[in-house]
């Protein structure tokens, strides 16, 4: 790691000023990607602007059918939040399966979405749930936010402030962890909004999170694992390396989707019978 200046920011306004004044400054939220990158000497920011303590970036609340989570909220806070567990239990489940306890106690939802690692978990939830990413400048729909590997619609100096998730009728997440890194080799977030609208977002398998629209259409007609059986994820643009072929990743995306849908059915049955 090289030397850098550290600034603990107290307001979004101050963050904007610091970013404007220092071209090589970087935002530090949990630092779970940035710090290892700096340790490997692959990033050498002049300043680290710590945004973890900014009040405007914190808080979890449900209002008018929408769950809002501040960008600096740590994974562990989402995983343990009674509000999240009640509104979108699949989101709490997802957060409880990110990385390891150390990562969950440092990493933040805003950091994960802004980084848009193609194998991160949160982008699949944001995309499937049709979330809105509220920034220091504007509101961006999830469908427009994610633009491929480590790329988002964020502009220079733009800071993610909060994420607004419409509360779905049902949702479930299943992932296949990479045997070495534990990141998603394929993760599928399935959510139902109203009666016939189902959104399926796949992370890990391709160069960025994407919606599996064939599955959405089939599941919109009938929300059952069998609806996906005859379909297949187009493997053409998926990732391929020593850990798995495109075909293997396409298969995993499908299997994880089936398992998420199966979990939806169990969740639904449990809530009908009054179970938790």
């Amino acid at each position, binding site marked *: 790691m*090289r*030397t850098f200046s550290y600034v603990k920011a107290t307001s979004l306004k101050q963050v904007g000023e610091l970013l404007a004044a220092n071209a090589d400054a970087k935002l530090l939220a949990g630092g779970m990607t940035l710090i290892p990158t700096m340790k490997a*000497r692959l990033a050498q920011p002049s300043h680290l602007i710590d945004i973890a303590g900014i009040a405007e970036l914190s808080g979890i609340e449900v209002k008018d059918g929408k769950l809002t989570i501040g960008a600096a909220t740590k994974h562990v806070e989402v995983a343990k939040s009674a509000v999240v567990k009640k509104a979108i239990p699949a989101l709490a489940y997802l957060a409880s399966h990110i990385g390891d306890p150390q990562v969950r106690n440092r990493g933040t939802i805003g950091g994960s979405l802004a980084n848009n690692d193609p194998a991160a978990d949160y982008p699949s939830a944001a995309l499937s749930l049709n979330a809105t990413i509220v920034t220091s400048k504007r509101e961006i729909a999830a469908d427009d936010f994610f633009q491929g590997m480590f790329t988002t619609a964020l502009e220079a100096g733009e800071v993610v402030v909060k994420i607004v998730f419409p509360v779905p009728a049902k949702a479930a997440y299943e992932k296949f962890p990479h045997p*070495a890194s534990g990141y998603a080799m394929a993760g599928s977030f399935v959510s139902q909004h109203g009666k016939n609208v189902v959104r399926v977002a796949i992370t890990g398998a391709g160069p960025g999170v994407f919606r599996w629209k064939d599955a959405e259409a089939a599941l919109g007609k009938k929300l059952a694992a069998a609806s996906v059986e005859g379909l297949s994820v187009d493997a053409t643009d998926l990732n391929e390396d020593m*850990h798995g072929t495109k075909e293997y990743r396409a298969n995993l995306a499908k299997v994880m989707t089936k398992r998420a849908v199966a979990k939806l059915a169990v969740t639904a049955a449990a809530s009908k019978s009054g179970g938790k």
Partner: protein
Amino acid sequence: MDQHHHSQLFKVGNAQVSRLEDIRLITGNGKYSSDWNAPDQLHACFLRSDRAHARIVSINFDKVGQIKGVIGVYTGADAKVAGYLRPPSFLPATGKGGMKARVPERPCLAIGKVRFVGDPVAMVIADSHLAAQDACELIEVVYEDLPAVVDPEDALKPGAPQLHDDVPGNNPYEAESGSEAPVTEAIANAAYVVKLTVDCTRVTASPMEPRAALIEYKADTDSYVVHTPSQGVNMTRKQFATYANLGEDKFRVEIQDVGGGFGQRSTCYPEYVSMMMAAKALQRPIKWVSTRTESFLTDTHGRANIITCTLAMDKNAQFTGLRVDWLTDQGAYLSPTGPAGHIRNPTTCLNGVYKIPALYAHFRVALTNTGWVAAYRGAGRPDIAYAIERVVDAAARELNMDPADLRRRNYVPLNEYPYKSATGSTIEIADLPGLSAKALTLADWSGFEARRAASAKKGKLRGIGMSAVIEPTGAGTYPRDEIELSVNADGLVTLHTVAHSQGQGHETSFAMVTANALGIPTERIKVRQGDADRSVTMVGNHSGGSRTMVGAGTVCHIAANKLIDAGKSLAAEDLGVEPSQVSYSKGEFSSPHSKKKITLAQLAAKKKLSVVGEGTFTSTYPNGCHITEVEIDPETGVTDIASYLSVDDCGHIVSHTIVEGQMHGAVVQGLGQVFGEHIVYDKESGQMITGSFSDYIMPRAGQLKSMQMEEYTTLSKIGPLGIKGMGESGCTASLPALVNAVSNALGVKHLDMPLTPSKVWATIQQNKAHLAKHH
């Protein structure tokens, strides 16, 4: 047949359930190599080759002066002046047909050429680690790229890129064991011949403690004090002395705790002797701590053997001959232990646990543009066991026989031990027919089909696999193992040993043996390892080859008895009797001829009470049968270990806690290799593509949820305690047992490691039709 019952020779009075060193280690009070600091120390950082094979055209370090705190830069030119050109090699001088071993130079910093990604090119010394790192990035090296070869078979082909001028054909050594003609004849006359090639993959030890060193130069004696992870101070001194062309007396090794060894710590690495140059030139201690990336690239790797077994059988499925063709990839340079261990150890156990009248092995060694290879938990023993136990399973499959039955027909029977093998080994004692019968019963081998059917109902593919293995352990390379015991006026016994624990728990096991012999509580024995507090280094082996309890551990018993004898002589004067009239019990000397008594403490307060015990030991042969069942999810290719049973014969057990810990660790280390661990180089560029834990698949605790461990003991007579060295045997047994189980589940003859979910899934896709019928 009381051989089969637990030893009565040596009963441990005070059962030790937890290890004496653990509180210190798990509360962060251990002292590892990077915890050593000297007030005026400087820091080293190495500039390493970023390419697999290239000529060095020029090295320009003009710019390093821009970095504040840089003291010096060293390159191959300095290595040449110092003469630090040849690491030690334990390879026998002549090989097959009188071939002379060709051990290439390995200057501590590259001269003229780099031969693998990570090869050290320059060393920067600075007053901080950061400055040294920054300076390294400013050194400009101009390379002329050369074609690289990373595959050992390719490296031996005509026209392959040549790594070393003095090693033609990248072929440093070939060796043979057994005799070829009888095996060729057995194959020609066989009713059945089964041939199988297995890749015992390249892996790395990934110890928790990274490689590190603090090296001090002592001008008054022109000598060095070395603090670096070691498996034993004598081996470390010997290797430093050889690399640096100095006497062993020029090195003191001062260390305390070592965080994992696995064979990777035995080597004197080029970084260390490079640091010696700077320590002497600058008269300042030099410190270096490896990054994890450097560990992946430059720590010695393990295994990397491609082995073909050709097994001949008669019409009754009796083994009549075995031919082994063995290709070991040693990387860009020969490590001290790599090639020798990978030939000697398999030769000793070339028959596995079987009666095979004709044996022959041909060993080829290849140099490639990859990291060097050395001993790794078993050093050739797991490799040969893996190859044999796979070909035996493949044979059972081809003959449509129960693999347990095929093994039963061929085990060396108990009454033929000591068994003389066709490669000239004398294997002391084992009882595989009895041991495996116990394992098969405990694992309910015959009830497997019902469990397979139950798994099939859940949509899972179930498989069962067994292994029956044996290996040589315990023999040392030093003339003897010594243990010194000294009693102080408080009655505390200090035990000195040069065998160094890297986590094995010698502070506990050595104390237990000694305390038992002396009849005093274990806590009264304080174990001191290495050169600490001593001006003269004792004689003794390093901890490696599962030898320490057989050697130094047994000598604790011998030394304790010697201490009692010495004490009797001293006590006789106080008691006013002849030494022969003195008896000793539980820390107290007394005599029926005298009413007086004197304790160890009282005696030590008056007189010097100190002895050195010694002993020399040959190989012991731990053996075992492991049986495991796996359940595979055909949708994802994930293998779940449904059950794992080990039945082992490691002779007399001193500490069950430690033996079980070793067995757990070794089985899981094997599991790691089976299911994920793999060092892979890109064939074109020679870049390592598994250089971090994001790509190198370590085993996870949850992969082996439980393990049933059982014993079946035959005692070794190599030492008075009946111990057989067992630190590596779990790994030897788990590799074949697990691969046999997965092959059985998938209905395939063989599948090379690592059995990752993607590989298993792809295999299922190819064999869908077969599996539908089979299951």
